[in-house]
C-alpha cells in the first residue's frame, strides 16, 4: 500500500459564494475528524522537519500531526499550545503558504500538508469539548510585568511570562482584547467568539486584563515602571496609524480608512445593526484602494454590507498584489471587481460633501523600485470618473506616535517604529522591550507572536538579573 503521503491534500469545505455574501459567518467550514486524520496521516514525520523552521514560534508540527493522525485531537492541541497560545486563530489566519507549509518537503513534488487546517481543527475540537486544561502555575517570582497592547505580540508575551511565574497585566486601549484580531480581521475569517475563548485562557494563567487603558495618556511607560511598580514593560502596540493618500476630496463623507471601516464593522459590530448602535455607511457602489489582505477584507466586508458593486483599485498588476492567494481567490468568487493598474487621483462630492465619484487614472509598469517590484507609472490623459458612494483606503499603516511621544529616551527609527533588538526585543530603555508591528511595521500574526515569545524569554532573563 502506498504511504498516505501519496494521497491528495484534503480540500476545505466552504460556504458557497452566493450564500456567504449575505452573511458574516465563517467562509471555510472546517475539516471533519476523518478529514483531519487523513490529512495528518500524510505527514512523513521528517527527522529534520523543514516545516518547523517556517513557523516563527516553532510549533512542533510533526509532533502534533502524529497525535492528530491517531485521533488524539486534544493532545495535538496541547502540543501546539506548548509554543502557541492562539492555535485556533493561527490555524485560520497564518499565511501558511509562505510559512510552515512553504517548507514542507511534500510540497516539493506534490502538495504540502495542510498544517493550518489541521491546527484549526484540533484547536476547535479541544475548545468545543471544553477539554482544555490550564497548565500548572509555577510559584510566583514576585516580579511584575506590564504588557502594552493586546495584539498577538502582547498576548503571547503575557502568556509566556505568566507561565514563568511572573505577575502580568495587559493594558489595552480599546474595550476588547485582541488588537487587529478583534478590530481588523473580519468575523467571516476569524469569529470573535473563538478569539475570545483563546484570550480567556490567559486569565486562567493568572494574567490580568485591563481594557480601556490608553498608555501614554492614562499612565506613561515611565509611570508603569515607577508609580505602578512594574519591573519591566513590553510594548506591543501594533502599526495602527491609518495612511491616507493626500488626494483632493479625501475628507468627503464616505471616504474611510480601512481601519475605520473595519473597526466599525468588527470591533463595533456595525454589520449587525440589530445588536449594535454604531453605524457604518452601507454603500451601493464601493471602491477599495489597495491590494493587500486589508484591502481584501474591506472589499469582502463591503460586499456583505450589501454593496451591489465593489471595485478594488490596485496600482500595480495582479502579480504584485501582496494579498494571500486564498484571499484574492475568495474575493473574486464573491464578485469583487479588480481594477488593476488603476489608482484614484481625486474624490468628488456633491453639495453636502458626500462622495459621488472617484477620478481614476490608469497606470503602466515601469522600472523596478526599491521593493524590487515594477513601479507603476501614471498614463497621462487616462483619467475617468467612476461613480461610487463609499471609498476605503487600504494602502498600509504606520506607527502610532502615542507611546514614542510620551516616552523620553525611547529610540524610534525614521518612520516612527520603535528600535528593538530582533532577538530580545530590548529597546533603548532598560526594562522596556518591544515587538510585533510597532517594531517591524505591518507583518503577520505569527511573526508578532514570535517577537512576543523572544521578548518574554529576554524579559525573564532580565527579571532574574534584578
Amino acid at each position, binding site marked *: 500500500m502506498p504511504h498516505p503521503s501519496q494521497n491528495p491534500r484534503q480540500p476545505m469545505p466552504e460556504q458557497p459564494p452566493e450564500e456567504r455574501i449575505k452573511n458574516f459567518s465563517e467562509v471555510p467550514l472546517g475539516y471533519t475528524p476523518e478529514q483531519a486524520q487523513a490529512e495528518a496521516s500524510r505527514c512523513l514525520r521528517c527527522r529534520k522537519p523543514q516545516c518547523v523552521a517556517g513557523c516563527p514560534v516553532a510549533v512542533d508540527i510533526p509532533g502534533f500531526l502524529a497525535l492528530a493522525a491517531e485521533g488524539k485531537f486534544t493532545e495535538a492541541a496541547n502540543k501546539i499550545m506548548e509554543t502557541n497560545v492562539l492555535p485556533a486563530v493561527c490555524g485560520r489566519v497564518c499565511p501558511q503558504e509562505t510559512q510552515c507549509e512553504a517548507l514542507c518537503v511534500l510540497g516539493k513534488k506534490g502538495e504540502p500538508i495542510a498544517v493550518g487546517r489541521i491546527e484549526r481543527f484540533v484547536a476547535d475540537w479541544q475548545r468545543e469539548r471544553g477539554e482544555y486544561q490550564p497548565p500548572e502555575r509555577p510559584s510566583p517570582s514576585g516580579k511584575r510585568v506590564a504588557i502594552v497592547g493586546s495584539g498577538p505580540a502582547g498576548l503571547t508575551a503575557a502568556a509566556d511570562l505568566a507561565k514563568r511565574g511572573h505577575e502580568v497585566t495587559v493594558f489595552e486601549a480599546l474595550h476588547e482584547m485582541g488588537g487587529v484580531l478583534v478590530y481588523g480581521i473580519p468575523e467571516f475569517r476569524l469569529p470573535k467568539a473563538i478569539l475570545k475563548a483563546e484570550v480567556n485562557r490567559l486569565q486562567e494563567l493568572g494574567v490580568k486584563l485591563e481594557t480601556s487603558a490608553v498608555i501614554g495618556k*492614562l499612565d506613561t511607560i515611565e509611570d508603569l515602571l515607577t508609580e505602578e511598580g512594574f519591573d519591566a514593560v513590553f510594548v506591543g502596540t501594533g502599526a495602527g496609524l*491609518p495612511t491616507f493618500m493626500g488626494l483632493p476630496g479625501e*475628507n468627503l*463623507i464616505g471616504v474611510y480608512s480601512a*481601519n*475605520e471601516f473595519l473597526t466599525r464593522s468588527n470591533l463595533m459590530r456595525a454589520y449587525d445593526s440589530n445588536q449594535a448602535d454604531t453605524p457604518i455607511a452601507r454603500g451601493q457602489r464601493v471602491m477599495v484602494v489597495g491590494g493587500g489582505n486589508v484591502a481584501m477584507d474591506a472589499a469582502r466586508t463591503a460586499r456583505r454590507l450589501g454593496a451591489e458593486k465593489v471595485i478594488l483599485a490596485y496600482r500595480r498588476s495582479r502579480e504584485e498584489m501582496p494579498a494571500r492567494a486564498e484571499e484574492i481567490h475568495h474575493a473574486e468568487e464573491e464578485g469583487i471587481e479588480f481594477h488593476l493598474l488603476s489608482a484614484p487621483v481625486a474624490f468628488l462630492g456633491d453639495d453636502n*460633501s458626500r462622495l459621488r465619484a472617484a477620478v481614476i487614472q490608469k497606470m503602466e509598469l515601469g522600472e523596478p523600485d526599491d521593493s524590487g517590484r515594477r513601479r507603476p507609472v501614471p498614463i497621462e490623459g487616462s483619467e475617468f470618473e467612476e461613480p461610487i458612494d463609499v471609498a476605503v483606503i487600504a494602502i498600509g499603516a504606520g506607527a502610532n506616535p502615542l507611546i514614542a511621544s510620551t516616552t523620553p529616551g525611547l529610540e524610534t527609527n525614521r518612520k516612527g517604529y520603535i528600535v528593538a533588538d530582533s532577538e530580545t526585543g530590548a529597546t533603548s530603555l532598560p526594562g522596556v522591550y518591544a515587538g510585533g508591528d510597532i517594531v517591524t511595521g505591518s507583518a503577520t500574526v505569527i511573526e508578532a507572536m514570535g517577537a512576543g515569545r523572544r521578548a518574554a524569554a529576554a524579559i525573564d532573563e532580565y527579571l532574574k538579573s534584578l
Partner: protein
Amino acid sequence: MSANEIVLKEEIAPQTYRYVVRHPKIARKRRAGQFVILRVHEGGERVPLTIVDSDPEAGTVTLIFQAVGHSTRELAELEVGDQVLDLAGPLGQPTHIENFGTACVIGGGYGTAPVLPIAVALREAGNELLGIVGARTRELVILEEELQALCSRLEVATDDGSYGHHGFVTDVLQKLLDEGQKIDFVLAIGPAPMMRAVSDLTRQHGIKTMVSLNPLMVDGTGMCGGCRVEVGGETKFACVDGPEFDGHLVNFDLLMKRQATYKPQETEACQLESHCRLSEHLRH
C-alpha cells in the same frame, strides 16, 4: 464604590445631565481640555465626552452631557450606583494655558460645560476673565453661577430672549469689543456654527481664538482617522492632535458636514423612539 460607578446624577437643565463618575486614575491624570470615551452597554457606541471637572481625592470625574440622540439618551437612563461599561481617558491634548492678559470664554449650549475647567485654568494662570454663555432658552443656560465666580464680567445670551441678551453670543462679543473692552484671547466651545461665527468675528479683530472640535469619533487614539478635520488646509485627527484648534484656521463647513455623516441612519433610529422629537427640539 467600584470603578466607572455613577456616584451622582443631576439634571441641571432639561435633558442635560451632570454625572460624577468614579475613576480614580483619570481623576488624577486628566488636565483641562481632555475628554473620555465611554460605552453604556455591550453593543453601545463609543461616546466622547469632555471631562468637566475632577476630584483627585474622591477619585471622581464630572461629565456634563445633553441627551441628543440614541447613545446619550441611553446614558441618561443610568442611575446612581450603575456603572458605565467602559471609560477610557484622559484623551486628547490638554488645553494650552498661559497668561494672555484678558481672556474671554464663550460657551454655547452643552459647550459651556467644557469651558468651565479651562476657565479655571486660565484664571489660575493669572488671566483676567470675561465670560459669555449662550443657550436657546433660559432653562438651558448652565453653569452660570460657577462661571460668575471666575469672571469679572459674565453675560448671558438666549436665542429667544427669555434671559439676558436676546440673540447670539457673537452679538455680545461684538458689543464688548464696541465698548472698547480689551480682549487678548478667546476660547469658544459649542455648536460648530457658533464657533465659526465667533472665529469670523475675532479674525477681523486679530484676536487669537481657540475652539474645541467635536467630530464623530470611534477609538479616540489616532487609529481610525474618522475624526479628521481640516485646520489650515492640513488634515488633523481631532482625538490626538486636538480637540482644540486655532478657530481662524478650522474648516467648519467640512466639520459640520462630516458630523452629519450618519444623519440618515440616526433619523431612522430616532423614528423608532418616541422621545426623540424632544431632543430634536432641544438641539441647536
